[in-house]
């Protein structure tokens, strides 16, 4: 039951993240602080650390699930939303919305959906349909383009300070409070269909015709799951920016915990643990520097990307 091991790891990291900070808490005072409620001795935990940890957990769940679903639907471990440019486009949309006074959530959704449509058109082949390797490479171009456009947008807005650009290009939990945490809970309904999709994803991995012969409505399911995962990733971006490499890393790591199956819940838990761990680093290595959490996810995740590319190159699948 490796999945319980995963739950345990996530829980332990969560508690550690609550205890960590400028002044570390020992287990007893952490528990006392949590028990005493928002107005008691644990005011600092309740006001500052808890919402931040909740936002990190939910965003990690969202990125992890969306990543695993994309990787499974496209049968390519590189096809996660942060590699194929979806999160970058969502970030662009969120920033554009923010600057024009519209709700960032709406902008992120629009950006994410546009990215999907654009990639579908760019990577489709007249005869062979959607070419997975093309999708990844076109997504790479799209990611660069969207990041550059986001930065240009921030610069154009005038008050373009470096930290806003940094936060929106790499993702951060700095400044996440209860309003963000409450907004984060809206993500949960988007996760339920993906958790339930375990069996469908598993059958789709046998190939389209095989899945159809087993009685699945392949086209409909693929479109619905892809759309759902894209929305989830976009909402997570609107929450804390495109935390890089979480979606990419969660799928392959979760497969180990779930015995090789494409389990979105396991991937979500891996993502949540990953983000919590990265934020723990961000708050304990150089707390004064206020470095974005996305920097640490990138530092940990980039070697994994290299590993996956190397593995795929060996198998000649890219």
């Amino acid at each position, binding site marked *: 039951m490796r999945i319980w091991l995963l739950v345990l790891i996530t829980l332990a990291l969560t508690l550690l993240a609550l205890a960590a900070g400028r002044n570390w808490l020992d287990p007893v005072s952490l528990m006392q602080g949590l028990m005493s409620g928002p107005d008691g001795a644990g005011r600092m935990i309740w006001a500052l650390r808890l919402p931040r940890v909740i936002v990190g957990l939910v965003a990690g769940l969202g990125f992890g699930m969306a990543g695993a679903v994309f990787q499974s639907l496209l*049968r390519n471990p590189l096809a996660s939303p942060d590699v194929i440019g979806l999160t970058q486009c969502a970030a662009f949309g969120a920033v554009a919305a923010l600057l024009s006074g519209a709700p960032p959530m709406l902008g992120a959704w629009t950006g994410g959906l546009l990215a999907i449509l654009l990639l579908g058109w760019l990577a489709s082949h007249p005869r062979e349909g959607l070419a997975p390797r093309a999708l990844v490479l076109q997504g790479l171009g799209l990611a660069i383009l969207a990041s550059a456009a986001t930065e240009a947008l921030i610069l154009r807005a005038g008050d373009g300070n470096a930290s806003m650009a940094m936060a929106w290009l790499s993702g951060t939990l700095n400044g996440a409070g209860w309003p963000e945490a409450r907004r984060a809970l809206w993500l949960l309904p988007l996760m339920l269909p993906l958790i*339930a999709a375990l*069996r469908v994803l*598993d*059958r789709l*991995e*046998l*190939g*389209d*015709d*095989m899945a*159809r*012969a*087993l*009685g*699945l*409505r392949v086209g409909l399911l693929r479109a619905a799951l892809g759309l759902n995962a894209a929305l989830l990733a976009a909402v997570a971006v609107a929450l804390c920016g495109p935390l890089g490499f979480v979606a990419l890393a969660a799928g392959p790591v979760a*497969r180990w915990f779930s*015995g*090789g*199956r494409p389990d979105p819940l396991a991937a979500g838990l891996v993502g949540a643990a990953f983000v919590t761990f990265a934020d723990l680093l961000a708050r304990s290595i150089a707390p004064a520097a206020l470095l974005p959490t996305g920097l640490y996810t990138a530092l940990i995740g980039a070697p994994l990307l290299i590993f996956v590319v190397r593995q795929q190159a060996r198998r000649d699948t890219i």
Partner: protein
Amino acid sequence: MPFDVQDLTLRLGDTTVLNGISCRLPTRGITGIIGENGCGKTTLLRCLAGVLRPASGRVQHAGSDIAALSPKARARRIAMLPQSALAPAGLTVRQLVARGRTPWLRPFQPMSRADHAAVARALSDVGLNDLAARPLDSLSGGQRQRAWIALVLAQDTDTVLLDEPLNFLDLPHQTELVHLLRRLATDRSVVMILHDLTIAARICDHVLALKAGRLVASGPPAEVLTAAPLRATFGIEFDCLSLPGSGKPVVLPQGL
């Protein structure tokens, strides 16, 4: 009468892949589909399985139009093993075969005792009981093919469609698989695409010959695997003999 096909036509883009095919297939035994590459064999099989919608015409299975069936209901009657099937990494044989129970499972419910029994039956049918816990990647080509066939058997349908199941197997493995298919065909209908006319002649009870999307001939091997229909199907001349004893046909391309 599992399949009653009426005037089946299918276009992909500008090309007509299937053109006015009408035939009836027997309830038991093996039906072979033969023809050149690109003549529409796989497309016909996919239409029979209901995974592809024809432009016009009807495919009826045991009296009901398969286009009107829900995908799940259809998958409980007809199983298909496509050539494009992919084996996810790390799956064991038993896990793979269990995927065949999909149309019988209810949402959010684990496999029932009946499901497990069906998987065990399928595994023993193909003789893979001892290897059930092994990862699929560690099996030989012949064993792997039997595992895939066990998957469609676990689906528990009275009709099984196979796309070139004998490809890439050496002679002993081909023979072994042919024995298995013959045995399976005693109580269900097996429809498969075949390349080797010698094997088609020996194991089929019924043969469909396609040429450029049209049905050229349909009937028992003794009728279809003769000089004139084969010439119409492949465009070359064949020497047709009959085997002493069983009287089954043997065909050889001339000039080979």
